[in-house]
């Protein structure tokens, strides 16, 4: 897929840079593709790739895709792509549109297996000369994978010409791969072999490992085998290190999702002691708010779509928080001090909310798009990090920090803590406890809404979205210790990491089961969680 994209980019570059002069040189060769059957096509293809002219790339790609046709009226070679019932014609070199034709007007230039091989070899070789470094890089990678000995002369030329360090390294790796596995290996000196093996070891990924294993297992000389074996162990160590790091990243990523889902619960359950089984539905409402905001942007300001998430954040906070306040005022305030009854009532609310969303938006998943700055990925050493996950990790920690500041440093936070610790006394000091209750519950629900915005980016936005997180969230809060935000942080990251480190050995489902069993056993050891409150608060 990425290769195709790069080539598409190359195509744009090619269209922009190819001059009329080039086109004039190539045109007879392109024309020759259409005559002489398989052998004629193959001969013309060979000559095309010998020119080393990247303008030929789109033509050859069209040939590969079966889009290259001969127009019967004037025997011109054209690209014909199906559009509806007819074919849309275009010039293979300039890309200029040449009108429509029916299937009867054109003959496809057919290709066989030997041609297919020649096509990929010549594409690989041609793109090695591309002016675009990215295209050269992916071409080098393609050669590395195919290890086609025919590409060696072109590769050598390309290496001599190459200025870009990273691309040259990729090309040298490709050459090393061809040399070590091809017939040339038996004629090489030990020093050459050693340097080729070193080049591969420097690459240090799974592909290199496969190649090195092939070298070590082949009928090569003892020296080759020895150096390959040494290289294999270095590469394996390196891979293990990066795999551990990748797991840690996945764990952090999962942990931050858990943190986001659980942190609102840490407020309603941890601080207020309300078991809010409708917490997951607050998350779901946040996700649906994101969907609505995005629909609005799609309809009215498609150009500003990248900003929709930023608008969705406060919107989701307000909507979910508002629903939370309504729930608190209408149901929960009658049930303070009866945690198990609250549990049942909020469970009932969660069922009703799910059904309400299902009735309004339908039972199917809703499409929530990612803004451009959240899509894509980058490589960090041996790690692949997607921007979406990175932003969620950052966002989770930002929400956590903001909540911590709100609880510890603001008047509102002070009131919350006062009411939690001693309700009658807080009341006597002039704090409107009922209002603080409502706002605290609204805060917890609003944070759940924020989580919904983030989760809408990585999960399906459906009425059941919240259900998937509610049990995990409770596990995190209980594991971390009720009434302690730091406990929630540590709990989320620990459970996320344990889960991801277990997954490679036990599989996703068994890993999750093991985590649940671990929590059940852990609660036996520390019935009040990792960071238990001490003193009087325990009995309250």
């Amino acid at each position: 897929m990425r290769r195709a994209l790069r080539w598409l980019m190359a195509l744009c570059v090619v269209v922009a840079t190819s001059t009329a002069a080039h086109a004039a040189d190539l045109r007879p060769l392109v024309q020759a593709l259409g005559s002489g059957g398989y052998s004629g096509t193959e001969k013309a293809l060979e000559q095309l790739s010998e020119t080393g002219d990247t303008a030929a790339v789109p033509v050859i790609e069209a040939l590969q895709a079966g889009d290259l046709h001969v127009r019967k009226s004037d025997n011109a070679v054209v690209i014909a792509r199906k559009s509806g019932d007819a074919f849309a014609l275009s010039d293979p070199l300039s890309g200029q549109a040449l009108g429509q034709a029916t299937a009867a007007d054109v003959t496809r230039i057919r290709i066989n297996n030997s041609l297919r091989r020649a096509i990929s070899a010549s594409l690989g070789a041609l793109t090695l000369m591309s002016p675009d470094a990215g295209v050269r890089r992916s071409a080098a990678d393609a050669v590395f994978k195919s290890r086609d000995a025919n590409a060696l002369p072109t590769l050598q030329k390309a290496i001599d010409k190459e200025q870009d360090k990273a691309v040259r390294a990729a090309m040298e790796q490709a050459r090393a791969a061809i040399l070590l596995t091809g017939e040339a290996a038996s004629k090489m000196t030990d020093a050459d072999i050693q340097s080729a093996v070193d080049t591969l070891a420097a690459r240090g990924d799974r592909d290199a490992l496969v190649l090195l294993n092939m070298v070590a297992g082949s009928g090569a000389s003892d020296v080759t085998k020895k150096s390959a074996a040494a290289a294999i162990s270095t590469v394996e160590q390196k891979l293990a290190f990066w795999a551990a790091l990748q797991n840690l990243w996945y764990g952090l990523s999962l942990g931050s999702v858990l943190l986001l889902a659980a942190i609102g619960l840490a407020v309603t359950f941890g601080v207020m002691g309300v078991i809010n089984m409708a917490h997951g539905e607050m998350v779901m409402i946040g996700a649906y708010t994101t969907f609505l905001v995005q629909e609005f942007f799609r309809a009215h300001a498609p150009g500003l779509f990248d900003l929709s998430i930023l608008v969705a954040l406060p919107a989701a906070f307000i909507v979910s928080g508002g629903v939370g306040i309504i729930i608190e005022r209408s149901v929960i305030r009658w049930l303070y001090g009866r945690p198990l009854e609250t549990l049942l009532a909020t469970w009932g609310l969660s069922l009703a909310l799910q059904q309400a969303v299902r009735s309004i938006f339908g039972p199917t998943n809703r499409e929530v798009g990612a803004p451009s700055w959240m899509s894509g990925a980058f490589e960090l050493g041996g790690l692949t990090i997607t921007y979406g996950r990175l932003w969620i990790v950052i966002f989770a920690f930002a929400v956590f920090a903001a909540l911590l500041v709100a609880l510890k440093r603001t008047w509102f936070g002070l009131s919350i803590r006062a009411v939690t610790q001693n309700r009658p006394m807080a009341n006597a000091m002039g704090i409107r406890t009922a209002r603080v209750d409502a706002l605290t519950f609204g805060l917890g629900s609003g944070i759940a809404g924020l989580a919904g915005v983030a989760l809408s980016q990585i999960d399906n936005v459906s009425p059941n979205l919240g259900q998937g997180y509610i049990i995990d969230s409770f596990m995190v809060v209980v594991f971390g210790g009720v009434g302690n935000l730091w406990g929630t942080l540590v709990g989320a990251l620990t459970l996320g990491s344990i889960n991801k480190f277990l997954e490679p050995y036990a599989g996703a489902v068994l890993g999750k089961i093991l985590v649940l069993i671990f929590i059940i056993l852990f609660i036996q050891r520390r019935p009040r969680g990792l960071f238990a409150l001490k003193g009087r608060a325990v009995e309250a």
Partner: protein
Amino acid sequence: MLLRFFLMGLDRKAGIVLTILAILAVAVPVMTLWVPADSPFHLSVFTVSLLGKYLCFALLALALDLVWGYCGILSLGHAAFFALGGYAMGMYLMRQIGPRGVYGNPVLPDFMVFLNWKELPWYWLGFDQFWFAAIMVLVVPGALAFAFGWFAFRSRVTGVYLSIITQALTFALLLAFFRNDMGFGGNNGLTDFKDILGYDIQADTTRVALFVATVAALALSYMIASGVIASKLGKVLVALRDAESRVRFMGYDTESYKLFAWTLSACMAGVAGALYVPQVGIINPSEFAPASSIEAVIWVAVGGRGTLAGGILGAVLVNMGKSYFTGALPELWLFALGGLFVAVTLFLPKGLLGLWGQLTAKLPRRNKPSALPNAHPADQKGA
């Protein structure tokens, strides 16, 4: 001795419940099998299976009420014991299929043949015998409950924490039973049963017999539960529900009392599951879903917590409502159920039987102290 134990629990309420059950046990077979089909008093076999299903749920609710109403343990995982009992029965019924399965393997159930298994896993051995399966229906849920409770109660995990880890337990089992490698049919569960104890499971007489067996199991469980409640042990249970620390300080080994009631309750739930499976014809992992456990809690809450009879009443009423709504107004069922949860907790903290108790208590003659629980403030705080 045993007779005295059973008679001890027999009060007026128990008399009413047992009378109704006895009438059901006699009237339903007569109305199904001997009343002609065109008579208005005829019951279809479908209705009998439906009633049987309700009574299985009622037995589950009874089991739950025993621990929630009388020990203050709100289990959000009782459906796990129900489903384990159901799987034990399902395994027996699977083995009874024998060579009549799609693949015709005389020993292996179809799904194992499908997974290319060569021989029966060790934990399936013995399930071709009814007596073994019947013991397992009690032993498997009981053993799990015993182990779980032994750990949890000794560590003094109480209240909300206990509720949440029971939920974790059933969720873990849900995930486990979804796995094909577990050898319990994975996603599809166990189904396509042929016969039970040699009788065709689809036959009218078998269905009626299963119904009568369910009524008998419910009546027996009710007598056991009310016997336990009326005994000295029951008094300790109620005491530790209301003020566990005080009971412990008085020298009682509260963990053992709780563990006994908890394990007994799990066995009852297992029996309920075992009777449920042949009547509905399937058992699959969705029975383990935390939602079904919580639904069972609402049955008890609707009927009246801590009344035993209330659980039965609530289970039957709520499930009749469910059958009606999911058939006639499927969109509204979750609204109705959700509203029921909220309304019961807000307006009917003692359930329907509590409401009845309040109404009758106002009559001058019945002005005795209410036997219903929830009277103690510590219960509301701690439970």
